[in-house]
């Protein structure tokens, strides 16, 4: 259904829900959710298959490309999906324009900062020596 068919003239100009922009965000949220179906299952299955959950075993797991690459993807896609998802909650419940901008900016910084910390730690494991 194209927007022109269904929207009133005002709706066509605004064309926007509570997110105040188009369908890209909606679609990204769903695509990342499909990716996380695989990455999340991989993560849980990996924890179950590891013989032990001590530091040495975990280092060996994340040092190998088979562990490091999916973990990097899980971090990147996970933080992106979290940011997109929490933004929906903010856009739904915070109505004042300034506050919404402040919340969304704070959450963007948190997601990028948290993702950077996690990726740095992973890089240190993946490229460091196996003790």
């Amino acid at each position: 259904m194209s927007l022109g068919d269904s929207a009133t003239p005002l709706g066509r100009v605004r064309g926007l829900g509570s997110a105040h922009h188009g369908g890209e965000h909606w679609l990204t949220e769903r695509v990342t959710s499909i990716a996380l179906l695989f990455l999340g299952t991989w993560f849980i299955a990996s924890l179950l298959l590891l013989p032990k959950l001590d530091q040495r075993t975990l280092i060996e797991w994340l040092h190998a490309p088979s562990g490091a690459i999916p973990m990097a993807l899980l971090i990147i896609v996970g933080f992106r999906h979290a940011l997109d998802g929490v933004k929906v909650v903010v856009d739904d419940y915070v109505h004042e324009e300034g506050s919404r901008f402040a919340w969304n900016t704070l959450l963007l910084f948190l997601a990028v900062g948290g993702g950077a910390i996690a990726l740095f730690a992973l890089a240190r494991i993946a490229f460091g020596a196996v003790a």
Partner: protein
Amino acid sequence: MAVSILHRVTGVALSFAGLGILAWWLFAISGGPDAYGNFEAVVNYRFYQVPLALIVLVGLTWSFFQHLLSGIRHLVMDTGAAFELGINKTFAILTIVGSVVLTAALWVFLLGVAK
């Protein structure tokens, strides 16, 4: 309705507590045996016999499975399917049954390995 709210609540919990703990856990692993020992100490800490952190982790794994299953439900509904009252309700209840069963199975297994 209730499952839809659960989807949001579990999503927010996973975003903050889930990803926060993931980042902390990775940082602890990368910091060497001592750093990881500190992480394990927090996880195993008991407040009057009550393993507080373990309860949080069980809650997060339940959140993960609940969010995953209700997420699948939402993807199906995005296609326009499963809006009929009976199917819709059954699907919603199944996400809760599924998440509880998966969480229980995971932790029975994990605690079995730890011992």
